[in-house]
């Protein structure tokens, strides 16, 4: 199940997005076809301050492109600029 169909996506939040959302993750029902569409939807809903162009995205624990098609039960993480070390 992908494309415009309604699907369930597991979103995990870290760092600033976690603070702005007030939780570490959630299970969402969405028609978003891509991570790009999903982030736009969530940014509007939760008022995230980071624009997509400073973020990267991971799907099922690997970096992915913003326009990859999402599937039911995918695990998505929006990755703000990293600062390890």
């Amino acid at each position, binding site marked *: 199940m992908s494309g415009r169909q309604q699907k369930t996506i597991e979103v*995990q939040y*870290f760092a600033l997005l976690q603070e702005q959302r007030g939780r570490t993750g959630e299970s969402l029902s969405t028609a978003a076809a891509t991570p790009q569409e999903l982030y736009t939807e969530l940014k509007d809903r939760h008022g995230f*301050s*980071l*624009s997509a162009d400073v973020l990267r995205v*991971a799907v099922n624990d690997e970096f992915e492109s913003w326009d990859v098609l999402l599937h039911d039960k995918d695990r998505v993480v929006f990755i703000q600029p*990293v*600062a390890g070390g």
Partner: protein
Amino acid sequence: MIVSTPLEELDLKTDLQDSAAGALVTFEGWVRNHNEGRPILQLEYQAYEALANNEGKRILEEVKTRYEVIAARCVHRVGRLNIGEMAVWIGVIAVHRADAFRACEHVIDQVKLRVPIWKKEFYEEGDSGWVNATGVVADPPPPAQAST
């Protein structure tokens, strides 16, 4: 590898024994008491552990193809860290020192660039903020305590 235990307590170079090695180069990243002119009291590191481990393994494999390296290891701590504590440890063994130095630097550079780990600074003034969180206003300081 992501761990929450103090790195000072771990025997980090145990896995890097090899009788063909002529050099071990290590790097320790420490929590310092200031950043960009602001005094800092503490740091909090958070990691997206599954991807951090995947990406970390790729970096360690890359250095083995780029340099004449026998083995490389990288461990990053998460949680609240105090000034002077070790946040990251990298060790590289090689036949000769030049490769070990270059590979060690390559690992820390790539970790800082690619591995999903984030750092929140807690400032002496009482406010805090995630490093590199572009265009974000830092959390305001807590209300001042009433003076007596």
